[in-house]
């Protein structure tokens, strides 16, 4: 093994213990301050800007490849795409015709029932950066940050349904925690009968579970789960997933329910950051200070 030069071998490292203790105490202090107080949020935002070049450098070859692939598609492919998209647009417009009327009607009904669940106001589209954050947590990095008005706890959707929520905001980027993360829970209801419960992530990308339903609950495979809007974090009525399997063990008091998420958690590249309508938000109790998004 010739990897190490022997010339340096006799050099004494002065104050190793001192520096080790110093840095360790500094790190411990950082951990405690970051965990307990909100002071480090700004520092972290600044540091995340420093990390941005590395993240961009890593993501850019993939983006370059995608760009290259897009630029060399043939005319036939583009024509086929155009025809397909036009057909899809026709269908979508047809469905949209009644949307305005339905939304007004929904608002009226909500007002009648004095419900306070959130209604979406506006949204911003962010791109998922091609960067792996942590192998054991379900999180993605998105190229929109505090500069775009993103805030911690903001609901994130994709074209299929609810994707997750913002866990941490940097100046240029933000970190989204997926609904499938083991530390994530979202208030839902079953669309068929309005039964309310909470969907909890499992840490596996394509599985959520409903751990709080009794064995006698009216739930069957194939039921659609939508956000209930309770808690105020998510707008109401967006699909979260479909029930994949219900296991009822008579010896247990709670059913074992698996849910397949509606959003393409492992594939979506474009995400929608959603703002709730202010009047809906005003009726909610003020949010707790969100220095530490996860406990």
């Amino acid at each position: 093994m010739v990897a190490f030069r022997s010339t340096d071998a006799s050099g004494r490292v002065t104050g190793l213990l001192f520096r080790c203790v110093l840095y360790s105490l500094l790190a411990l202090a950082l951990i405690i301050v970051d965990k307990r107080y909100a002071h480090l949020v700004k520092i972290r935002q600044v540091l995340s800007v420093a990390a941005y070049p590395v993240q961009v450098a890593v993501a850019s070859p993939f983006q370059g490849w995608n760009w290259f692939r897009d630029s060399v598609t043939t005319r036939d492919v583009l024509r086929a795409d155009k025809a397909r998209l036009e057909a899809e647009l026709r269908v979508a417009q047809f469905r949209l015709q009644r949307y305005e009327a339905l939304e007004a009607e929904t608002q009226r009904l909500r007002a009648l029932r004095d419900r306070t669940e959130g209604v979406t106001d506006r949204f911003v589209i962010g791109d998922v950066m091609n960067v792996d954050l942590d192998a054991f947590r379900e999180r993605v990095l998105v190229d929109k940050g505090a500069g775009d008005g993103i805030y911690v706890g903001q609901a994130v959707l994709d074209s299929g349904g609810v994707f997750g929520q913002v866990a941490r905001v940097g100046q240029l980027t933000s970190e989204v925690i997926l609904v499938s993360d083991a530390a994530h829970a979202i208030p839902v209801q079953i669309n068929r009968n309005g039964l309310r419960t909470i969907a909890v992530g499992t840490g596996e990308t394509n599985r959520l579970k409903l751990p709080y339903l009794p064995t006698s609950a009216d739930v069957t495979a194939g039921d659609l789960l939508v956000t209930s809007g309770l808690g105020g974090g998510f707008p109401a009525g967006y699909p979260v997933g479909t029930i994949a399997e219900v296991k009822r063990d008579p010896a247990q008091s709670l059913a074992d329910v698996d849910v397949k998420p509606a959003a393409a958690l492992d594939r979506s590249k474009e995400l929608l950051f959603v703002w709730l309508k202010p009047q809906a938000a005003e009726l909610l109790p003020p949010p707790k200070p969100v220095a530490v998004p996860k406990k």
Partner: protein
Amino acid sequence: MMRETRIRRMPMALSAVGALALAVVPLPAVLDAFRPDFLVLVVFYWCIESPRAGGLSLAFFSGLALDVIHGVVLGQHALALTLMGAWATHLRLRIRVFSVLSQCLTVFLLLTGYQFVLFWVDGATGNPVTTFGRWLAPLIGALLWPVLTNLMGKIHER
């Protein structure tokens, strides 16, 4: 020798940034759990190779960078890397004369210690990751150690 009087920090910084990039390169989900801690290996290398160039400072700030990039509690990787970097520095004279196999075993021990500190801080801050997957990284990292040291040695000789 001239090289002895002047401590060169450039290769150190460049290799650390390269390893940091490798830590976030997207991998298929199956391979992701097998990703070795490249930056940790690089820090160990510099702690052993030229401890007077500030291996421990490198360890602390590399850890901080990992904290920011992984989005975990600030100071977690910094603490783990500082402790294990100091240990590596303490053992450096012995590690240099070890056979390849003994070096790998020592590095495996250091990497496991690193993961243990991470595991402990995760638990203490209320985010335990209890999959067995995280204990695979030290094994892969230790297997990668001889390759890395030879590669770094070649770059360093230039």
